[in-house]
């Protein structure tokens, strides 16, 4: 397709730094439960996503629940086989590897999970949990034990955490264990799947600080999945906004928070009080209307058009219903909207890019 070629060219042009993980036209479709007699329907969890993750950066993937970001994250580390498209890591096409070869190659991609209570085996001691990647690699027992102690120290847990069971720890501490486990495999890239969502607010700040610290020390690349824009603001270099299985906007973090170019992003940002201040005209902030549609029944044309405030403002242009917009717009700031350039005129909010969200701020 012509526009996707253009996209690729732009990506390559702008990639002065090495791209570590590349995702091309990735789709994850699941068969949908249907009533007897209906045609076969598909849940389009991820629908044709193309992204690259640059070495050393933190790429955030944001969106509402159900937009496909978790599925994307899992597809990126090949925990689920993509229905279509490819995943390349370090120029190796993971999607073409056999299961055995994949198992050997996948150490470099790790994941931190959302649920601190479900992500640790309740019957294993912390030292065994963190040590498992080492055990699988064949590291002998004493070396394992030393390394585990090191890792625990790195994430802020003392050595007396090692012989304990997960149930003896709080949510925040369990996440630290999860981080230690991910680090044990010595990965180059870690997908953080909503690691803060299940934690208390005060703990969230600690974990974010830990993640940043670790990234700096060990030179890691992160893909940070979250629905919480305020947190993303603190940690991300670039942000990808997802809606209904596709990426609708992709830009550097600073740019996207200051001057978003997609109506959905605008709406998302306006919903976070910290990030938006009312403009002097004090018009009602653009809200996303209606209910989120199901990924089985994707709207025609632009996916967002049934809920798009901009479309309403522009008196329902036909193109929104007839043609699906693709990511376009220069090499650094991509947006999938037919009217991205008009957006600026119609946004009624100033986004306070200098708002700081250091730990300790109450919400």
């Amino acid at each position, binding site marked *: 397709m012509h526009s996707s070629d253009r996209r690729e060219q732009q990506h390559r042009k702008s990639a002065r730094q090495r791209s570590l993980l590349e995702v091309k036209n990735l789709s994850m479709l699941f068969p949908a439960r249907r009533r007897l007699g209906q045609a076969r329907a598909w849940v389009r969890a991820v629908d044709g996503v193309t992204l690259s993750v640059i070495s050393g950066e933190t790429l955030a993937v944001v969106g509402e629940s159900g937009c496909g970001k978790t599925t994307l994250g899992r597809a990126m580390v090949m925990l689920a086989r993509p229905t279509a498209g490819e995943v390349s890591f370090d120029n190796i096409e993971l999607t073409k590897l056999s299961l055995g070869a994949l198992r050997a190659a996948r150490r470099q991609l790790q*994941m931190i*999970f*959302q649920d601190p209570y479900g992500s640790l085996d309740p019957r294993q001691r912390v030292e065994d949990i963190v040590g*498992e990647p080492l055990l699988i690699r064949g590291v002998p027992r004493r070396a394992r034990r030393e390394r585990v102690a090191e890792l625990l120290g790195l994430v802020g847990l*003392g050595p007396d955490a090692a012989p304990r069971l997960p149930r003896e720890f709080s949510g925040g501490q369990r996440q630290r264990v999860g981080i230690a486990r991910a680090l044990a495999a010595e990965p180059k890239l870690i997908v953080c799947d909503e690691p803060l969502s299940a934690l208390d607010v005060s703990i969230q700040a600690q974990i974010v600080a830990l993640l940043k610290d670790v990234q700096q020390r060990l030179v890691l690349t992160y893909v940070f999945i979250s629905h919480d824009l305020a947190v993303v603001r603190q940690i991300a270099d670039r942000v990808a906004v997802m809606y209904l299985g596709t990426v609708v906007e992709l830009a550097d973090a600073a740019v996207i928070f200051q001057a978003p170019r997609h109506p959905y992003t605008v709406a998302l940002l306006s919903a976070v009080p910290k990030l938006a201040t009312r403009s002097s005209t004090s018009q009602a902030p653009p809200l996303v209307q209606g209910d989120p549609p199901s990924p089985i029944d994707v709207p025609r044309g632009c996916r967002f058009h049934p809920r798009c405030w901009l479309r309403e403002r522009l008196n329902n242009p036909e193109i929104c219903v007839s043609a699906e917009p693709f990511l376009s717009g220069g090499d650094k700031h991509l947006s999938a909207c037919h009217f991205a350039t008009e957006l600026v005129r119609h946004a009624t909010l100033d986004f306070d890019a200098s708002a700081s969200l250091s730990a300790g701020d109450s919400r």
Partner: protein
Amino acid sequence: MSAIEASPSVRSTIIWRATSLIRQRPALALSILCLALVALVALGAPLLPYGPFKQDILHRNGVPSAFHWLGTDELGRDVGARLAMGARVSLIVAISSSLIAVAIGVMIGMLSGYLGGFADTLIMRFVDSMYAFPETLFAILIASLVKGQLSGQAPALLEPLAEAYRWSGGLLGVLLTLGFTCWLTTARLVRSQVLALKNSEYILASQLAGASGWFIVKKHLLPNAQPVILVAITFVVPNAILLEAGLSFIGIGVDPPTPSWGTMIAAGVQSLQSYPHLLIAPALAIGATLLALNVVGDALRDLYDPALRR
């Protein structure tokens, strides 16, 4: 760097819950004692004064007396001694059925649950078909098949097996029959558990770390399936004992003169009108044992799944 504020190690939670449960329910304590008694008697059977096989025709069908505390049977053998030997048989049955259920049932359940897909469907179809076969009926068929092959003239290939059969007094036949029947429930239960656990995030984490399927089964699935396996055993054991007694009752279980509670009950039924005491002892023995097993089984199930409790 934060210090660890872990709660004091509560590794003994299960033990604590078990002891408090026993304190709360007198029936449970009684049942455990009863089972311990049965096990003790079974193990100590050879120590009893009158052997179970010693016939004393002159004193047959005797009511309980000072010499024979439970009386004598139709061939003059001491009922008490035979009862103890029967306890032994039941104990062996209990242990074997648990082993079989665990070995075969867990393996099949794990395989089916973890592999999923076509293998799972195939295995489950097989298990469902086995379920359609009424268990007692199937057991009778297998038992008679085994007896037919192993007792009397056995084909050359099976000769060593037949030797073992004879040595065991026919018990091997029962064990083989059990091998075919007692793994079903376990397989089903384990499979459901594996299906539930399969998508846990820690399993995903292991996969990411490069674990093979076998590793995951050994390190994660099996330990976490332990409660379910225990629950399955609480169903398997009483069922197996019942089955053995039933088979022996209609004559295709153990071979005479091996005593089993089932054969003793059958004999007791025969002389019901004239010597009722011959029925009472084995009937009480098996009834009490099964009752105790059920009470303990209930308690174990409650222990591992508090949601099931009141």
